[in-house]
């Protein structure tokens, strides 16, 4: 019983990262129609930014949680201007080549300097130790990760669903051409939206730094799950990305209770089922027509 409770929390932690990454992927795909395979590498850069801020500048976790996503988000905007922009209207194959190529370059660039071995990053002192969470004692920092990512997801949901900017993002996701014809300068939002999605990935990276090894390949496994989550939630669907993120995290961890080998299978089994039963994804039935 305690093990199940523990796995439930572990699932929520994993789900937090899936949700943050898929949310960024979904927003980017919705407005740009670009599948950003470099998302995992940008998440890793977030973790490395936190590590470097601490090592070289003595900047701790809390400032890093704000500074790193903003800095990497700006780098993402530059990337969109210089490279991603050239993909619009091209065969999706180029999308894959460019963003996957970027992943390899970013990963190997970091690897060249720091090697494959992970770098340790301490959890902030305020969140050290563990607290009693029902049946089990659970690390305070991990509970913070769950709460923080839920707050971020709700905030993003609020902006998308309740503000004029969010309305424009939804309209541009659903009918880009019509939205232009109705007087909205959709292209003006493309660069900020890409930067925002990248910032969410970097935020995930900073959150991961204290609990996972900061290493060049830390994003490469996670991103595969994040793509499964995006497909399950529905391409371009904001709510779908968040709900499917936590769903996959929890189901995978609970499946591991029965057999540890099942943990990595669940996401893809679920993806296969969703594709068979609801090809547009759980929340994707009406959204993201191209």
């Amino acid at each position, binding site marked *: 019983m305690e093990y199940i409770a523990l796995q439930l929390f572990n699932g929520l932690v994993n789900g937090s990262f899936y949700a943050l990454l898929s949310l960024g992927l979904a927003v980017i795909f919705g407005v740009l129609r670009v599948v950003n395979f470099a998302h995992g590498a940008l998440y890793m850069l977030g973790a490395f930014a936190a590590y470097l801020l601490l090592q070289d500048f003595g900047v701790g976790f809390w400032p890093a949680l704000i500074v790193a996503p903003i800095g990497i988000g700006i780098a993402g905007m530059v990337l969109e201007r210089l490279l991603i922009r050239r993909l619009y209207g091209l065969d999706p194959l180029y999308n894959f080549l460019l963003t996957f190529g970027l992943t390899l370059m970013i990963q190997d660039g970091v690897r060249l300097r720091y090697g494959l071995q992970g770098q340790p990053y301490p959890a902030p002192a305020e969140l050290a130790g563990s607290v009693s969470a029902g049946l089990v004692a659970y690390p305070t920092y991990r509970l913070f990760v769950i709460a923080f990512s839920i707050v971020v997801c709700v905030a993003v949901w609020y902006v998308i669903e309740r503000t004029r900017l969010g*309305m*424009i993002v939804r*309209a541009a996701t*659903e*009918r880009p051409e*019509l939205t232009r014809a*109705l*007087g*909205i*300068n959709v292209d003006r939002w493309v660069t900020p939206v890409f930067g925002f999605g990248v910032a969410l990935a970097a935020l995930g990276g900073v959150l991961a730094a204290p609990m996972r090894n900061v290493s060049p390949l830390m994003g490469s496994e996670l991103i595969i799950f994040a793509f499964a989550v995006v497909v399950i939630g529905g391409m371009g669907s904001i709510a779908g990305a968040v709900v499917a993120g936590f769903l996959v995290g929890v189901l995978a961890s609970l499946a591991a209770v029965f057999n540890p080998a099942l943990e990595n299978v669940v996401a893809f089994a679920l993806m296969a089922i969703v594709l068979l039963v609801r090809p547009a994804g759980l929340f994707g039935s009406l959204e993201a027509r191209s």
Partner: protein
Amino acid sequence: MRRPALEIEGLSARYGDAQALREVSLHVDEGELVTLVGRNGAGKTTLLRCVMGLHWQSTGFIRLNGREISGLPPYERARAGLGYVPDDRGIYATLAVEENLTLPPIVATTRWPLARIYETFPVLRERRAHAGTKLSGGEQQMLSIARALRTGASVLLLDEPTEGLAPVLVQRVAAMLQEAKREGTTVLLVEQNLRFATTVADRHYLLAQGQIVEALANQEVIARESELLRHLGV
């Protein structure tokens, strides 16, 4: 002497190798309601898309209230005063009814603020928080026209607004267009329904195989109705 609100000169458009419009020239004067009639595939929808800047493979001149707009991106054309009601009504599923109405920015003094729209169509007020596509086809059409009117656009482009509507709703659309016209709005209407066209329009252009074959006064259309209906293949 009325001034032209919308002038099209030598407009040609193609889809790959297929020529969709050949050297089309027409004008709609301020406050006029003009229809563009023709068979399916004659190029009516393409013409409206060209005016909105949504069709890339096109050449020619388009002037709106004397201003050349053919080099502008679609959103700037909308802001210059074009209101667009597309053939599929263009209602967003991911936007609530009220969001569908308020998405396009107001471009000029509007005579159709939200309050008037809701007064005219109480159902839109009742359902303002519902998804736009949860409305019936007729309600979606009213929503689409109201959305274009709300922006204060000086020229409305409507693509077959009566298609698939019950007769009572067709009358509703007619009343709405007549009201907009009384208030000075200029309208270019693509229409297959000749009866409907003659009840609302001042003049008509007949489009066939991408060319304007005839410009007709309303009286002529009424007099030659059966011949024209044969031409339209109705």
